[in-house]
C-alpha cells in the first residue's frame, strides 16, 4: 500500500488541474454539450490524445441523465475506462524467480531520464544482487561520470569504454564480462537520441544485435524511457523505436511535476506494451511500479 499511496501523492499535483477542470464542468449536474466539451478539453490538456479523448467522451455521452449522476460518478466512469485501457500494461520488470543473467538495454530521447532511472533501478534490484552497469553513452560530456556516480553509490560494478569508443563494442565487452563473471543483471545505458535520427537509430540497432549475438540464450529487455512532459511525440517514439528495436517495455519519467503523461493512454491502446515503472523524482527511491488503478485514479484525483 505504501507504493500506491506514494504513487498517488507523487501524481497528485499532476491531477489537480484536470480534475478541477472536470469538477467545475460538472457542478451544474447536467451533461450538456458544454460539459462534454469541457471534459474533452480537460482530457486533451492532460496530453490524452484526441482519439482516446473521443473514445472517453463517447462513453460519457451514453450516460442517461438522472438525479444520480454527479461529478463523482462521471469521474469514476472515466477513471474506469482509463484503467481498463492501461490495466494490461502492468508488468513487473524484475521477475522474482528467474536465475541467470538478465540484460536491460535502456534507450530513449536525450534528457528523458535514462541515466537517472538506471540509478534508481539499481537501488530497486537490491544490494544482494550482482549488478553490472555499462555506460554506452560515449557521446554526451560526462554521461559516463554521471552513471558511475549512481552505480558507485549503490555499490554496483561499473563497466566503461574509452571516450568516443564505438558504443556497440562497449556493450559487447560488458556482455562478455557479465556472462563470465556470473552477474545477475547487466544494465546498459545508451546515449539519448531523437527517434527520427536514422543514423543514431541504426547505431542502436547495432548495439542491440551485438548484445543478441553475445547473449543468445539470455533474457534481453529493451526498455524505452519516455519523458512524461512530452506530448504526442511520445507516441512517435514508441512507434519508431519499437519498429526497429523490439522495445519490450516502457518507463515514464518526470510525472512528479505538472505533466500528466496522458499520451501513455494512447500508447497503451495502440501498442499493448508493458509499462514497468513511473519516475516520480530525482531521489533513489523515486521509481515506482506502474499500476493502472492508482494511475487512473490519480489522474482524475479520486480518493478511495
Amino acid at each position, binding site marked *: 500500500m505504501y507504493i500506491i499511496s506514494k504513487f498517488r501523492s507523487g501524481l497528485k499535483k499532476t491531477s489537480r488541474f484536470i480534475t478541477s477542470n472536470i469538477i467545475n464542468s460538472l457542478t451544474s449536474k447536467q451533461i450538456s454539450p458544454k460539459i462534454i466539451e469541457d471534459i474533452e478539453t480537460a482530457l486533451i490538456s492532460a*496530453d490524452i490524445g*484526441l482519439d482516446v479523448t473521443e473514445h472517453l467522451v463517447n462513453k460519457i455521452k451514453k450516460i442517461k441523465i438522472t438525479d444520480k449522476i454527479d461529478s463523482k460518478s462521471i469521474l469514476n466512469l472515466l477513471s474506469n475506462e482509463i484503467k481498463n485501457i492501461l490495466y494490461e500494461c502492468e508488468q513487473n520488470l524484475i521477475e522474482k524467480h528467474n536465475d541467470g543473467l538478465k540484460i536491460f538495454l535502456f534507450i530513449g530521447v536525450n*534528457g528523458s531520464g535514462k541515466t537517472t532511472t538506471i540509478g534508481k533501478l539499481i537501488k530497486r534490484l537490491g544490494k544482494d544482487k550482482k549488478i553490472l552497469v555499462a555506460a554506452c553513452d560515449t557521446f554526451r*560530456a*560526462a554521461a559516463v561520470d554521471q552513471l558511475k556516480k549512481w552505480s558507485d553509490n549503490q555499490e554496483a560494478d561499473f563497466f566503461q569504454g574509452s571516450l568516443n569508443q564505438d558504443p556497440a563494442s562497449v556493450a559487447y565487452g560488458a556482455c562478455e564480462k557479465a556472462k563470465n563473471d556470473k552477474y545477475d543483471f547487466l544494465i546498459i545505458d545508451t546515449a539519448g537520441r531523437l527517434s527520427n535520427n536514422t543514423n543514431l537509430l541504426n547505431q542502436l540497432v547495432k548495439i542491440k544485435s551485438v548484445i543478441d549475438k553475445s547473449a543468445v540464450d539470455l533474457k534481453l529487455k529493451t526498455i524505452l524511457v519516455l519523458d512524461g512532459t512530452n506530448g504526442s511525440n511520445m507516441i512517435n517514439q514508441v512507434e519508431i523505436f519499437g519498429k526497429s528495436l523490439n522495445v519490450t517495455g516502457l518507463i515514464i519519467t518526470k510525472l512528479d511535476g505538472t*505533466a500528466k503523461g496522458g499520451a501513455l493512454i494512447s500508447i497503451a491502446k495502440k501498442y499493448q506494451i508493458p509499462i514497468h515503472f513511473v519516475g516520480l523524482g530525482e531521489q533513489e527511491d523515486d521509481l515506482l511500479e506502474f499500476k493502472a488503478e492508482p494511475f487512473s485514479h490519480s489522474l482524475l484525483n479520486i480518493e478511495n
Partner: protein
Amino acid sequence: MFGILNEKLEKIVGSIRGKAIISEDDLDITLREIRIAFLEADVALSVVKSFIEDIKSNIVGQKVLKSIKPDQMIIKLVHDELIKILGSNNESLNIAKTGLTKILFCGLQGSGKTTTVAKLANYIKKDSKKNILLVSSDIYRPAAQEQLQVLSKQINVEFFNHKNTKSVEKITLDSIKHAEQNLFDIMLFDTAGRQVVDEAMMEELKKIAQILDPQETILVADSLTGQDAANIANSFSKTVHITSSILTRIDGDGKGGAALSIKSITGAPIKFIGTGEKIEQLESFHPERIANRILGMGDIVSLVEKATENIDQKEIENLAKKMSKGKFDLEDFANQLKQMGKMGGVSGIMSMLPGISKAQKLMAENKISNDTINHQIAIINSMTKNERSNPEIIKASRKIRISNGSGMRVQDVNKLLKQFLQSQKMMKRMKLMNKGDLSNNLLQKLQGNLPPNFNH
C-alpha cells in the same frame, strides 16, 4: 518545425476553397478543425482557445476584407494571429556594452540547459571577441558540473571551478566576483533542472536571480513538450523575469507546438532554437520566416492587391477569352510568364501563395527560379509567329534554330514545349471548372498561371 500543423491547416483551408460565401455552420466546423489541428500539434489548450477566440472576434468585428473569399480570409486571420503570437523579428541577446553581462538559464530536468549553455557560448564566441565564463550551479545531478566543464574545454571557454561548493548562493556570489575580477564580458550561468511544483527549488531559482541580477534570463524548453508547456511557462515566468527562451530538439518532430505555447504565455521572444546534437547546431530564431512557413500561407491579401496592381487587365481578359474558346498557344504562354515576372517573379509569388510548402518542395526539386522564366520567354521570343500558334510544327531543325537564337540548349526547348502542352491541358480543364466571374476568380487564375511543374 510546424510542418505537420502546416499540412493540416492547408487541408482545412482546402476544404472551403472555392466557396463564395461561408455559412455560420461551415465557419464553426472550420474553426473546430483548426482547433484540433493546433491541439494535435501539442499547442497548449489555453493558447489554442484564445487563438480561436481572437479569430472569431475578428470575423464578428468585420475586420475582414469583404472582397476576398472565405478560404483566403481564414488564411489571413490564422496567419495574422500567428504573427501576433510569434512576433515579427528575430531579437538578439541583450548584452551590456560595458561591464559584465550575466545570462541565467533555467528549465525542467532534461530540457537541454547544459548543452544549450555550451552551444550559446560557442555561438557568441564565433562572432565576437567576448571573454566568456561558464558557471554551473547544479549541485544535485551527478556529474552535472563535469558535463559543463568538459563542454567548456571543447569550445575553449573558461569554466568557473568552485570545487564542489555545496551552496548555490555561495556559487552565485563567488562566480560574480570571479567574473568581475577577471574582467569577463559574459557569464553564462547554468542551473539545476527543476519541476515547477518543487517549491524549494523554485525558491532557490528566485534567490539566484536576485543575487545575479541577470541581463537575460533564458527559459530552456524541450520542443517535444506537450500540454505541460503552459504550466512550465507560467510557473517560471511567475518565479523569475523570463526575458527570452530557447527551444531545444526542434529537429525532433514537425509539431513544435510548445514553441507557440511558451512564446504566447511568457511573452518573451524565442531567441534561439537547438537544431541538433552538435555544439554548432544552435540557430537564431526568425519568427517571421517561421510564420510565413507555418501554413505556408503568407499574406494572401497582399497577393491579391499586388496582383490587381500589376497585372495588365487587358492581357488577362484576352487570355480569358482565349481560354474560354479552348485556345491557348505559346504566345499566351509567354504572356503568362511575363505576368508572373511583373508580380515579383517566382519567389515573389511563392512567398505569398497558399500551399507553398508543396510548391516550395517542387521548386527545389525542379530548380525553378526567376532565371527559368526569363529563359523560357527568350525561347518563345526566338520562335516565328507561325510556330507560336502552331507548336506542333516545331521539329528537329526548328528546335536547333530556336535553341541557337535564344542561347538555350535543345533540351530546354523540349522542356518548354512539354510544359506548354501540360499547361494547355490544364487550361482546358480550367475552362470546364471555372465559369465564374473573372475578377472573383483571380486567385485561382493565378494559381493556374503557374508553370505546370508546380502543380504536379
